[in-house]
C-alpha cells in the first residue's frame, strides 16, 4: 500500500508531532509601511490527526499556507515536517523536503494540458520514476480516490469534485507524510464538499497521514478535524482539541462551532447560556432542574451537535421573572454543565 501503518508501540508515550511550526513571522513591506501578516504562529500537529486552521479573510491563512510550503519565505521562525527543517532548506534540499508534503488547493490547480492520469503522474515524472512504476502507482491512486475510468479525461471534462479528487490523488503520489489542504472544499457544493471530506478523512486513516486543513468553513472543522486553531490578525488566539474548544463556553470557537441564533428575551427573567456535552452530562439536566426548582424554563435558542464523537448542546434559556438564578446556576454546575448569565461568566 502507500504507507506502512505505524502502530504506536507504547500507547502512553508522548505523540510524535509531524508538523511543528514555531514562532512563524511574516512581514510584508508595502512602500514605507510594514504589514505583519503572521505575528508569531506556533503549531504542532501529532501524527495521524487532522488539524483545522480557521479564520476570517485577512487573518493570515493564505500567508500561513505559503510560508508552510515556503512558496513565500517567512521573515523568521521555523517550519519542520517530521523533524526536517524546511525554513533553512535551499534548492535541492527544499525540493526533497517539499516532496514530503502533499498539497491540495481550492481550485485543484490541475494542468489543463494533462489528462487525469498524466496529472497524477506529474510528481512522479519529476523524480524520474520509471514508466511502469508510474502507471502502477497512478492506477492505484485513481482507484483510491474513486476515479477509475477517468484516466484519459482532461480537467475541463471533469466536475469540480472530480477535479479535486484528481488533486488529492496527485498530492498523494509522492507518498507524503503530510497533506496540506488550502480551502479544499470552498469552491464545491455542499454534497460534493461532504464527499471530499469523507474521502480526506478516510485517506487519513488508511494512509496514516497527518493533515492540516486551512479553511473559513466551520462545517469542515466540525466534520473532519480532531483539533482546531483560530487565526486572527496573524496570531493563533484559540486552539485545542475540537472537544475541548467546543466545551469552553463563551470562547469564539465554541460560539462558532455551536452557534445560537439571536432571539429577544421574553419579559424580564434572567437569561442563562448553558453548554453541556456528552462527556460531562448525560442526564437530562434541564428537565431535572425544572422539576427540582419547580420552574417553567423558556428555551430561547439552541444548537445540538455531535463533534468529534461527542454530543454537545448549547442553549439559551430564560428563567421566569423574579426567580433567583443563583441556586439554579449552582445546581447546573454541580451536574457538570457550563453556565453563564447572558453576556458574562457565572462563577
Amino acid at each position: 500500500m502507500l504507507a506502512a501503518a505505524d502502530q504506536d508501540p507504547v500507547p502512553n508515550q508522548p505523540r510524535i508531532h509531524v508538523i511543528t511550526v514555531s514562532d512563524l513571522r511574516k512581514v510584508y513591506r508595502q512602500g514605507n509601511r510594514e504589514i505583519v501578516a503572521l505575528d508569531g504562529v506556533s503549531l504542532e500537529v501529532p501524527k495521524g490527526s487532522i488539524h483545522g486552521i480557521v479564520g476570517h479573510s485577512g487573518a493570515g491563512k493564505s500567508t500561513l499556507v505559503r510560508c508552510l510550503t515556503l512558496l513565500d519565505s517567512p521573515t523568521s521562525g521555523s517550519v519542520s515536517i517530521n523533524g526536517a527543517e524546511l525554513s533553512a532548506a535551499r534548492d535541492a534540499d527544499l525540493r526533497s523536503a517539499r516532496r514530503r508534503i502533499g498539497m491540495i488547493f481550492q481550485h485543484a490547480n490541475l494542468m489543463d494540458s494533462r489528462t487525469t492520469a498524466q496529472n497524477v503522474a506529474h510528481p512522479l515524472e519529476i523524480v524520474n520514476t520509471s514508466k511502469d512504476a508510474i502507471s502502477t502507482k497512478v492506477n492505484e491512486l485513481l482507484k483510491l480516490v474513486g476515479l477509475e475510468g477517468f484516466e484519459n479525461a482532461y480537467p475541463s471534462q471533469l466536475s469540480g469534485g472530480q477535479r479535486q479528487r484528481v488533486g488529492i490523488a496527485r498530492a498523494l503520489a509522492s507518498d507524503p507524510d503530510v497533506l496540506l489542504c488550502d480551502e479544499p472544499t470552498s469552491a464545491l457544493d455542499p454534497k460534493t464538499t461532504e464527499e471530499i471530506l469523507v474521502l480526506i478523512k478516510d485517506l487519513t486513516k488508511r494512509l496514516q497521514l497527518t493533515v492540516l486543513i486551512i479553511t473559513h468553513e466551520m462545517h469542515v472543522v466540525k466534520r473532519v478535524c480532531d483539533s482546531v486553531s483560530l487565526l486572527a490578525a496573524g496570531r493563533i488566539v484559540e486552539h485545542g482539541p475540537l472537544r475541548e474548544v467546543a466545551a469552553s463556553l463563551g470562547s469564539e470557537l465554541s460560539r462558532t462551532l455551536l452557534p445560537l441564533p439571536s432571539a429577544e428575551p421574553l419579559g424580564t427573567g434572567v437569561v442563562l447560556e448553558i453548554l453541556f456535552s456528552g462527556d460531562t452530562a448525560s442526564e437530562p439536566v434541564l428537565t431535572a432542574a425544572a422539576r427540582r426548582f419547580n420552574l417553567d424554563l423558556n428555551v430561547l435558542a439552541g444548537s445540538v451537535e455531535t463533534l468529534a464523537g461527542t454530543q454537545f448542546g448549547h442553549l439559551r434559556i430564560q428563567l421566569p421573572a423574579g426567580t433567583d438564578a443563583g441556586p439554579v446556576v449552582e445546581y447546573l454546575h454541580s451536574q457538570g454543565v457550563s453556565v453563564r448569565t447572558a453576556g458574562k461568566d457565572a462563577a
Partner: protein
Amino acid sequence: MNLFEDLFSNPAITKALPEAIGETLLMVGISGVFTVLIGLPLGIFLYTSAPGGLRPLPVTNRIVSDIVVNITRSIPFAILMISLIPLARIITGTSIGALAATVSLTIGTVPFFARLVETALRDISSGKIDAALVMGSTRMQIVRKVLVPEALPGLVAALTTTMVTLVGYSAMAGLTGGGGLGQLAYNYGYQRFNTTVMIVTIVLIVILVQAIQWIGDAVARRVDHRSAATAGSKKSRRHEPATVVGV
C-alpha cells in the same frame, strides 16, 4: 481576356513567379525556425526573470526588456533591414538574396515573438506554478512541464501571428534585394506597370497568409484542452493583434 492570356504567357509569371514563391517560403520558413529558437527562450526568460517570477533578476530583466525588446521593436522594419545589411554579409557572406534577408527578418521578428510568448505565459494561473513548486519541481521542470505545455494554445497563436508578420516583412525585404514575391511585385508590378503580376502576387500573398492562419488555428484548437472543444477557435485568436501585410 488580356489578363487571362497574360497569366500563361508572361515570363514574369511563368518563369519568375515559381522562383519567387520558393524564395518567399524559404525566407519565411528559415526565419520562422530561428525566431522560435531564439524568441521562445527569450520570452520565457522575460517571464521568469520578471519581479515576482520564478527566478527574479530585476536588473537583467529591465535591460533585456527595455533595451533589446522595446528598442528593436520601435525601429521600423524597413530601417532595421537596411541597417542590418552589414551583419547579414558577415553571417551569410552576401548582402542580397533570400538567405541574407533571413538575418534581418529573424532579428526583426524575434523581439515581437518574445513579447507574445511572454504574454501567453502570463495567462497561466499562478496556482499551477505553485502546485508544481510544491511537488518539488526544479525551475527547468516548471518551464518544460508547466509553462510551455500549459501556454501551448497561446504559443501557437503567437507563432501564427508572427508567421503572418514574417510574410509581410519578407515582402518588404524584397525591396532591398531579398527576392521573393515582394521583389517580383516591385520589379514587375510597380516599376514596369504590369498589373497582372501585381494582382497575382497580391492573391498569392493573401492565400499564403490565409493558409498560415488556418493551419495555426487548427493546431491551436488541437492542443487546447482548457475547455469544451468548441471554445478552441475563439481562444486561439486571443493574442492576435492587427497585422499589416504587404509591401
